[in-house]
């Protein structure tokens, strides 16, 4: 049942221009970023300078892709759930003999599958350099995993925001607000407050950083899985209560 809901969302994205435009725009931007990175490593003594190539690749390619996901995923999530409410197709799901949890997981899986090709694009671009430079595929894979988990977190936050309002635009704006908060929560020193460990832990960028460095840590996996579960649980609670207000 979860797969059926996810498959429909996938079909909806790629039968309309949405999915293709998204892939094309991401590819164009990442292609430009790749050329900029390669620029640093061409010219005199390339073998000496290629030492930092992998780190530059992951930070620039996957960092840019993460910024794109931050912009795009809340919109996709708002469309996925808010669109059903706005277009009047919600009764089809809510009236079916399936639980709200199943619907929510179906929507989440649909977004996860939609985010996946966006995460594979920078990986593919990085891997094209194999044979021409000393590329570390393991590091790129770790970065792609980190990027996908970041995308999943954005999707969970986006779905929660979509349960707050029936307006997809308002839902996307609410998701941006939450995600920006999760992005800058560790920058308390900017406000004159001392830096706190727990706030540092809450910021997604801190955890993505380790993946981009090629390090897959259990604590980072726990962070992403835990926060995704938290926002999905909050979304489930909101949906359950929606029948009462």
């Amino acid at each position, binding site marked *: 049942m979860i797969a059926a809901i996810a498959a429909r969302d996938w079909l909806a994205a790629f039968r309309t221009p949405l999915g293709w435009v998204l892939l094309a725009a991401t590819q164009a931007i990442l292609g430009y970023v790749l050329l900029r990175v390669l620029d640093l490593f061409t010219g005199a003594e390339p073998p000496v300078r290629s030492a930092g190539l992998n780190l530059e690749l992951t930070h620039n390619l996957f960092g840019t892709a993460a910024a794109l996901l931050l912009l795009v995923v809340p919109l996709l999530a708002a469309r996925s759930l808010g669109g059903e409410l706005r277009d009047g197709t919600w*009764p089809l799901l809510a009236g079916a003999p*399936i*639980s709200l949890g199943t619907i929510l997981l179906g929507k989440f899986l649909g977004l996860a599958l939609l985010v996946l090709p966006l995460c594979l694009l920078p990986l593919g671009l990085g891997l094209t350099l194999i044979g021409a430079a000393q590329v570390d595929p393991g590091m790129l894979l770790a970065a792609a995993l980190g990027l996908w988990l970041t995308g999943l977190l954005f999707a969970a936050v986006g779905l929660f925001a979509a349960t707050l309002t029936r307006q997809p635009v308002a839902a996307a704006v609410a998701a941006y607000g939450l995600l920006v908060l999760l992005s800058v929560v560790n920058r308390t020193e900017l406000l004159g407050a001392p830096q706190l460990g727990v706030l540092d832990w809450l910021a997604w960028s801190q955890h993505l950083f380790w993946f981009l460095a090629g390090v897959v840590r259990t604590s980072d996996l726990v962070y992403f899985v835990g926060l995704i579960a938290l926002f999905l649980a909050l979304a489930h609670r909101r949906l359950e209560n929606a029948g009462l207000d």
Partner: protein
Amino acid sequence: MAGAGTRAIVAAMDALLMVQALTRRFGRTPAVAGLDFRLCAGEVVGLLGPNGAGKTTCLRILAGLLAPTSGRVVIAGHDMQHSPQRAKRHIGYLPERPPLYPEMRVEEYLTQVARLRGIPPGAVTRAVGRALRRCGLDAARRRLLGRLSKGYRQRAGLAAALVHEPELVILDEPTDGLDPVQMREVRGLIAELAERSAVLVSSHALAEVQASCRRVLVLDRGRLLHDGPLDAPRALRVRLARPPAPAALAALTSVATATAEAGAPGTFRVQLGADADAEQLAAGLVAAGWGLLEMMPERTDVERLFFRSVGMEAAA
């Protein structure tokens, strides 16, 4: 006493849908208040009321889309609040706006609905084929839902509500916005549905309910004003080109009583005889050569109630 109690329990067990003291408030405003009714298999019941009477809210609660503030909805013995998934298995619900995904093809869409409805994978193709045939969508099975005409969109919505062969079909304004031919088709489908399911149809058009329902619930401002059978009218108003004396009219076998309308020459109020129907009366009038110009049903109690509830008639 004990016999009556037992009968009530048996009736409750027979009921496919049981609604008890159903109330739903939006803020302080009650959208529906204290609704009580039952629906048995094979019944076609009209839910009648002006716009804003609470029909859609009532149907959304019955379909399990909206939780009631208080009261109970039991479908085929399953309480909607305690075991919603079991209760929903027995319902086919068509909302006012058919829930269609514009980028899907008709057949794809029905397959998706069949999966959501929990039809086993092996039986999906057969169920979809059956729904397509019943709703006259065979020729449109490969068309995109977003490109269908309003009539076809309504049919696709109906097919989605029927694909799992529900025992209780809930239709919210199914003929709204359709042309007369499409309306007749939908009515035909409702009549066909009644052979195996209970059907609850909401409408703000009295004629619509009269055309397809045997029983009617009249709702106004969230309250149930009337719950009773909708019989064919026994009193008719006829206008004749060459009017005879009322006694001559009353002498027809199909007529019980006939009185001339004051102030409307050639118009009579006719009460049909015990076994007679309107067709026999019309044949009698034509055979007598009185020149039948008009024949229309007198207002029924339900009609009076309805027009009073929409504010078009002062309370009697």
